[in-house]
């Protein structure tokens, strides 16, 4: 696995965990333990996102760092990743 693939997988697993907890909260909105857990995971995810975007380009169009439109420069997610 490339460094990018490792980071993407880690990022995706945190996102998946958070998404699943959020689905649970949709029907159990008063579970404060889960809310606490989401906050904890989200903080870690935030750091990962920042690292990812600095290295591999923006994940969303709202990332406007730099003075070039980087959105169209990074590969599209359906393309096979090139081996480093």
């Amino acid at each position: 696995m490339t460094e990018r693939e490792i980071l993407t997988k880690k990022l995706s697993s945190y996102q998946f965990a958070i998404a699943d907890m959020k689905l649970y909260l949709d029907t159990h909105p008063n579970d404060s333990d889960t809310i606490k857990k989401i906050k904890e995971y989200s903080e870690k995810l935030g750091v990962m996102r920042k690292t990812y975007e600095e290295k591999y380009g923006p994940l969303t169009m709202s990332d406007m760092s730099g003075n070039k439109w980087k959105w169209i420069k990074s590969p599209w997610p359906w393309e096979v990743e090139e081996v480093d």
Partner: protein
Amino acid sequence: MFVYEKKLQYPVNIKNPNPKLAKIILSQFGGADGELGAALRYLSQRYTMPLPELKATLTDIGTEELGHLEMVGAILYQLTKGMSEKDIKAAGIEDYFVDHTAGIYPQSAAGVPFTAAYIQSKGDAITDLHEDLAAEQKL
């Protein structure tokens, strides 16, 4: 409102294209029990749900289904990438190729184009949720 994230929910990196397999997997994209149907089902039914728990759940799982649709699309794209005329004939997908070339089109494996007739939205929570349970059993 939707915000696109330039990343798949789970990575897809297919090393060996296989157009014959793509023809089967195509049903998961635009077939009767595919991801497009699932996304449209939940995102259409959510408006008339009577409780916030239901509106939230249908909004969130409907959104997630769009993420699934994108992954299945990526699988199809990679399975059919760089097909030669020989590959197309060997895989028996000339009938798809003549209409769409390597484009990803929402249809079933048998070639039936996606239709909203695959889903329902009745404005009644119990009716819609029963449909959702049945639909999930088919996937």
